[in-house]
């Protein structure tokens, strides 16, 4: 034993010397793309306020593209169309959207009860005397939301995102809502405020300052909904002391409620018999109903679009499971609903709808490859939507669209551009909404499944509010 141990000691001594010999330090440095930063130097000469622009970044923003043939998300710099980074996603089937302040890409996987976030790398902070912009490389965020069941409708408004988790009747999980801001993602806030229901439902929640208007599903016996999973009431929840508390239940019902939107004064919900208006008077909401017009017929308004600065809303009436759609405008002030003069061409179906960044245009991307740009015109206190023009966004034969793929669209929040992804041509085109022209193209090496814009949204104050 002794001998063996001595041998071991010698062996140790020798190996130590060997290790000491190669006991070393190695450094590998790879230089990556540099970051452009605004000049941070103010030399105290005079007044800071003159230099407001020194802290802001002028950038078209970034585009996130989900691939159709792999579960990856690629981030492009829209200033030079360069690929910044590609991230592999956790799950297979994902939907893509942006965080309320457009800093993060939100990756949702309804089936996996999963929401993940990727930092787009462009954001703005309010430093009091100036706005300070930051530009960094995209980076995966460790923040994820996995506690809710079936995250379905994600609604953004004024810096807040409300996630409605439908819950699941089969597994007995209940519906819930969580409300978060970009800051919550940045600081990985563990406990988000929200609502937990005691039943599942296919509902929707609209965040609105310290209020949250969210749907309520009553007992099946009381519910006026035909499909009982759809709620038929709306509650006004008020945020104080770190939680949302139900303060008011709107007195009008909304059978088979589906779809909601808001503008500066109203929150609107789609019902099978019309639309429910909630008109805000400080902490109180006044309920009103606009009945369906004849043009809606057997269909029901299940999707509504609104914009903070747009007085009228756009509603899409369709049957269950798609089919032909009728597009209407809703004027809450005058409690009127009107069929748009412009409707989709025969054979075309709508793929994506959106307001433009400033709310002056409404965009309808159709299956034939046309981006239809509608414009609001005011006539004696009434707003009419008329077609401003069509942009043909593809030169390809749309009948060659591969199975399971479609065009997709996103709107830049810092100007007059919309981006449309074309899986046939494997590129993204940049459309100028005033000029109605394609002004740029971003080549892809894979078929895109979905796109979303990230970046620094233009400040609302800079808009001209004099209507």
């Amino acid at each position: 034993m002794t001998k063996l141990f001595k041998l071991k000691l010698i062996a140790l001594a020798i190996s130590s010397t060997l290790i000491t010999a190669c006991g070393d330090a190695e450094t590998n440095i790879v230089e990556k793309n540099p970051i452009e930063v605004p000049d941070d130097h103010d030399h105290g000469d005079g007044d800071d306020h003159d230099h407001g622009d020194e802290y802001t970044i002028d950038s078209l923003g970034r585009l996130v593209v989900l691939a159709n043939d792999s579960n990856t998300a690629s981030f492009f710099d829209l200033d030079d169309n360069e690929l910044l980074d590609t991230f592999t996603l956790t799950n297979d089937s994902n939907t893509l959207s942006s965080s309320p302040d457009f800093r993060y890409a939100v990756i949702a996987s309804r089936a996996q009860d999963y929401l993940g976030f990727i930092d787009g790398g462009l954001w703005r902070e309010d430093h009091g005397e100036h706005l300070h912009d930051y530009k960094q490389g995209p980076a995966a965020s460790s923040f994820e939301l996995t506690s809710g069941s079936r995250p379905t409708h994600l609604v953004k408004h004024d810096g807040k995102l409300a996630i409605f988790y439908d819950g699941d009747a089969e597994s007995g999980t209940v519906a819930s809502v969580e409300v978060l801001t970009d800051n919550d993602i940045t600081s990985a806030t563990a406990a988000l405020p929200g609502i937990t229901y005691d039943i599942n439902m296919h509902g929707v929640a609209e965040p609105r300052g310290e209020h949250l208007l969210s749907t309520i599903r009553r007992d099946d016996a009381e519910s006026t909904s035909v499909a009982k999973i759809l709620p038929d009431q709306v509650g006004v929840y008020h945020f104080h002391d770190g939680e949302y508390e139900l303060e008011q239940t709107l007195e009008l019902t909304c059978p088979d409620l589906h779809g909601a939107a808001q503008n500066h004064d109203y929150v609107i919900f789609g019902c099978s018999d019309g639309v429910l208006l909630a008109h805000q008077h400080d902490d109180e909401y006044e309920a009103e109903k606009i009945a369906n017009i004849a043009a809606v017929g057997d269909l029901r308004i299940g999707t509504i679009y609104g914009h903070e600065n747009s007085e009228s809303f756009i509603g899409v009436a369709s049957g269950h499971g798609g089919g032909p759609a009728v597009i209407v405008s809703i004027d809450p002030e005058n409690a009127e609903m009107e069929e748009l003069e412009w409707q989709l061409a025969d054979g075309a179906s709508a793929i994506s709808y959106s307001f433009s960044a400033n709310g002056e245009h409404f965009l309808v991307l159709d299956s034939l490859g046309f981006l239809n740009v509608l414009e609001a015109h005011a006539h004696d206190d009434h707003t009419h939507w008329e077609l401003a023009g069509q942009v043909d966004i593809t030169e390809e034969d749309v009948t060659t669209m591969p199975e399971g793929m479609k065009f997709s669209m996103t709107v830049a929040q810092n100007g007059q551009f919309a981006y449309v992804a074309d899986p046939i041509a494997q590129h993204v085109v940049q459309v100028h909404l005033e000029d109605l022209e394609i002004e740029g193209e971003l080549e892809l090496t894979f078929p895109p499944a979905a796109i979303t814009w990230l970046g620094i949204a233009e400040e609302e104050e800079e808009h001209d509010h004099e209507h």
Partner: protein
Amino acid sequence: MKRRSQLAVLIAALLPASVLANSIEGTVLNNQGKVVANATVEVEGSDVKVATDENGKFVIVNLKDGLKELHVVAPGYAHLHRDITVSGDENQSITFNLKRSPIEVIDIEATPIHMSAMESASPVSVLSGEQLRRQQAATLGDSLEKLPGVNTNFHGKVASTPIIRGLSGPRVLITQNGLDVSDVSRVGPDHSVASEASTAQQIEVLRGPATLFYGSGAIGGVVNVVDNRVPTDSTTRGEWNLEHNSVDNQKVASFNATTGTDSFAFYADAFWREADDYEIPVAAELDHDDHEEHSGDYTVENSNEESDGFTVGASYLMDQGFIGIAIEQFNRQYGIPGHTHGGEEEEHSEEESVYADLEQTKVQLLSEYNLDNEWLNKINLRVGHTDYKHAEIENSLVGTTFKNETNEFRVDLMHNPFSEWNGGLSFHYKQSDVEAQGEEAFTPPSQTQSFAVALMEERHFGDFLVQLGGRVERVTIDADNALLPNIDAHAHDEEEADEHDHDHEESTAITRVFDVEHEFTPVSLSAGLVWDFTPSYNLGLSVSRSERAPSASELLSFGAHIGTGTYEVGALFDVDKDGHFGLSEQAIDLETANNIDLTFRKTQGDIGFIFNAFYNQVDNYYYQIDTGLYAESGHSHGDEDGHDHGDEHDHSSELPVYLFKTDDVILHGFEAQVAWQLTDEFKVDLFSDYVRARLKDGGDLPRTPPLRFGTEFSYQTEKLSAHLHVTRYQEQDRTAPEETATDGYTMLDASVSYDLSVLNQDVSLYLRGTNLTDTEARVHSSFLKNIAPRPGRSFALGIRGYF
């Protein structure tokens, strides 16, 4: 442990003598021939440990044949080693005579091999029991500063961390129960240590290189805070304390308690502390001109503090050992004095006061298992997870957030004696993610991982004890976004003339981004010898060569560090003649310390002493040099527009640029400790320490503590104990460039405590006075010496109970 050994004694006493085969029984006596109760007798290299009963008797049963080394320990006495050969069916009876030691000898728990102040080759100190309670302070640095060789970096009382032999920061490792405390206190002097002394059981200091046990980060020493959070026995006991301190209106409350059943033990502790800005005898700023009559007290503004925390732990006790887990929550809010930005402090200090909000959750799993195996006799397991976060808050906005998430795993395999060698192998894995976000994020996010294997062995050869060790480590530091901004660094000496036409031709500058991967293989070797050349005296020699991988902040920093008032640039970068920063041409290398330690001790008798001398040559020492350039802190305070800036250009938001460079450095010095037990009641302690820290090519290192000497008179009876402590800090005039000399001062402290028994509890009332002469004391080793002197005269009144 105690309960089990008492049980062993009981069982042994009940068994007929014939069954006591292979047993040792004996008596422990002191010099006067009186019995020593409650002395611990342990068999080295095993877990066998028994305590003597009230007649000083002990029995150890079921020993295997062979040579056993017995170790006898009792408070107030020198430790005793005795070799006993056990052979079949023999019953041995022994008497041990313990000699008095005026210097308390406590074994440390930080190392797998046996070490104490009197017996090991390398120097260690332990603060425990009443002494710890007397010296504990809000910060670890201030708690330990009376130990020889240890100074505080006194950061305005709120964030002081220990300096060991002139070294601190990334060279001194702070551990809790042997696991990295995992805060960010190694990165900045204004960052507090996330560990609490008031609930600790003992605090151990390893002076000099301890990389052998702890790896990179322990090249200058280790401070290990030990508590009983994972209880090793279930004897019900506890301690509570309430105290009020006058100088800062500090209120402290703390308790700890252990209890349990035969197989389960439970532990809980909690503490709460609140203190206002502390008072000082003079104006805070050194160069304060006193034209305006100052009325009332001076205080160091923004030096208030509030902290609380609790720990709960539980363990499962087995015959062969224990396994347990403990969770701690630690919160602390403290003002950061001097963390004001730029001039104009007088006007703005209140609104601009910066405070830190620290939060840490720590989980530790500890286990010890004694095996009956041919090769191994004991396994020590330590696993830790720590989640640390602190935010620096200014005008109620979060300025910078620091995070550290660490996972650590450590297992020591102790083998059976191999031809009288005791020791074991240690495997150690540590991984930490450190991140800073915000204005002061001067270091990019990085991930550090290390894996190490170490071997430690010791053996007695007659009068010699030999201790040997080696450790190989693999350290990787990855940072995938190290930033190199294009800063407009400039010198100030070319006066203001051309400063104004800074042309802003390019409104955007480029920040270069690097993906950096470092891989280091530090190796540490150490050899020690203790020679008991004559009874009661020994001589120790320790030689070591230790390597350290530089830390992420030393390599990758680039940005304003308000805590030190500098713009820090890591060693990865360098500056050219025109003040432009680029990647350094210099290869990044390991820091290597070659250390010799010589110790001479008198271990027993009425006089005891320990003299240490050390010589430590550190090659490739990473330190910061002043580049003479200035850069914008990027930290503007939105000076209200109302201000008429009379002179246009003030440098208020500019910081001097300090660059990490390497150089060869020599540190040498001594520590001396003499204790003289005059009578049973009176004792005098004398101590002194000194370190000289210089560059090999000439020049001194900054913030090196001055020569220090002091004395303590103690009077102790059964009920009353009184202490008078005087420490003289000499002037420090060996300064680095840009550093100023600091005057010497004398601190006078006194304390008295009286024990009484109330409701079956031992209660002690105490009164403690510090800085009784109300002297102005500026700490040379502090970053804040010019704006935050030590607190003025203070009286603390407290009550402590034991059950």
